[in-house]
């Protein structure tokens, strides 16, 4: 079981984008993540819902646009106080 929520979030992204490295995921805009498409986006929404209990729509996710922005969104939304900055 991952120790932190940051790792939980990373696990969500890594499960949906299996061909992307951790570096790519953390630093890239969604469009630049290998394997990104709207279907993967929908899968990411489902995994985030399952893991963090947060429900977003695809346009909202696309507007966030990156791992860092999703992390910030989760923290600000009070989803988890433990999400690391």
């Amino acid at each position, binding site marked *: 079981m991952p120790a932190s929520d940051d790792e939980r979030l990373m696990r969500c992204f890594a*499960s949906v984008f299996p061909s992307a490295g951790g570096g790519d995921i953390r630093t890239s805009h969604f469009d630049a993540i290998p394997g990104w498409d709207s279907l993967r986006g929908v899968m990411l929404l489902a995994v985030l819902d399952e893991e963090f209990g947060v429900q977003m*729509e695809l346009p909202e996710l696309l507007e966030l646009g990156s791992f860092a922005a999703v992390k910030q969104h989760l923290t600000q939304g009070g989803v988890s106080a433990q999400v690391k900055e």
Partner: protein
Amino acid sequence: MNLIDALERLKRPVPETARAFKVFLACGFTPLHVETFLAAHLRDLYPACRIEVSSGLFGDLIGNLERLRPEQYDALAVVIEWPDLDSRLGMRTLGGWQIEKLPDIVDSANRSLERLRRALERISSILPTCVSLPTLPLPPLFYSGTRQSSVFELSLRRSLASFGEAISSSRQLLVVSEERLDENSPLAKRFDLRTEVTQGFPYKISHASVMGELLADLIRRPEPKKGLITDLDDTLWAGILGEVGVEGIHWQLDEHAQLHGIYQQFLASLASAGVLIAAASKNDPALVDQAFKRDDLLLSKTNVFPIEAHWRRKSESVQHILKKWNVLSDSVVFVDDSPMEVAEVQSAFPEMECILFPKGDYPAFWSLLFLLRSRFAKATISEEDSLRLQSIRAAGTFGETAGREAKSLDDFLQEAEGRLTFDVGKPSGDTRAFELVNKTNQFNLNGKRYDEAAWSRLLEDPKAYVVTVSYEDKFGKLGRIAVLTGRLAERKFIVESWVMSCRAFSRRIEFHCVQYIFERLGVDEVVFEAHATGRNGPLIEFVQQLVEEPVETNPRLSKSSFLRKAPKMPHHVEEVYASK
């Protein structure tokens, strides 16, 4: 399994040489997480394969099935939901729910079901198919409210039930159990309106997970167990026979022993479906014999063979039973009310499933019945299932007579009046040959197994031979006991798979099979694609006594060499040709 686990499972590397296992997932909605869970469960069930799940056009379930080319896949999973029957039964179209439209919705659904039935009939004759009937609640379109079933709703459900009944008569088509689904995914927790509207995916993740698992389990059904060994006292009946006597044991409601009666009834049901039932009891054998003469027993003594009643260890009884049945311990379930006996047998046979009979524990007993039903589950029952116990008894008589009369084996086999029938056709509707190839371990050339699609392809291949062998003698009928498949290559016949039921051992049937190939196919040489599996010792020994080369090198056997080494062939041989 949750979604992230499923996705991670699919990330695991598959060897490049792994065979592709291709599944078509037919559904009218975006397959999304059902596809993910199905693929993940199939990865677990087919670890040596590369799983490929594909799907068709969104919103066109019936069209996808009508266009499907079944020969391109290994299995088909069909997920039907109400909008596939009429889009007005879904939440993504606005066709109107006015009262005057309800009869048309029902008519339209009936027409869709008929199209589906025809499409599935075509496909399932070639491709193993599993079908899930609508799992989601109907939308609230009926005027009768939510506490009363509307006549339109009941009409829809009646049509659906008729459809399910009609398609399930196809041998290769399995319908997902609604009861199992209800148990694992409660109705109220299945539908997700938000994802249905925004993504075209109507399932909550948990429901998608259950659906993926159930569909995968139907695509890859586990091999059913072959036999059940039961204890007697406080298991098959209530009471200790040695203490209360034959009239003191009970299994009736008015004697507070109904669970034992249900258990007897259940075992009789298993026996009627070809499951071997034996008894192992620390008891006085004469008393047990008397108890089995009670005419109110729900499990007839003719359904129980053998009965091991003595005071020695239970594991010793189990050993004797396995020998009589000639089956391996991993295909048998042992049931006893004594934790100590269960532990002793489990220790002696680690691969056997040993279960404590839950005396007086109603919920545990209820669960036991379902567990046993799943362990012995079969899609269809064949003639051989009803013959199995009879032929094992006959085999016992055969062996005992052979030993007692101390005649030469030649004389004994001659007097047995054996008749072998070689069937060189490929009856596509016959499950017995397929089952035999897939469940036989001991007399098995190489352990090669076929899934249903591969078996169908073999039957369709004009260059492939499939020979099925049946046997009977004056001791009884064994039914179809051997299957041999292979191909001709000039003057050679290459045996690709060859299995024979252990019930047919010691009758020289294997020599007859080889002789038949030489004579019927007119070849000079037979090549055995043999491979030692660790469990097929009897077959390997047989081949090794005929050939000069090591068995692992696809050894060849010439006709002259065979005729020199083969013993006298005792049986009368007939040949039939089943229609395709």
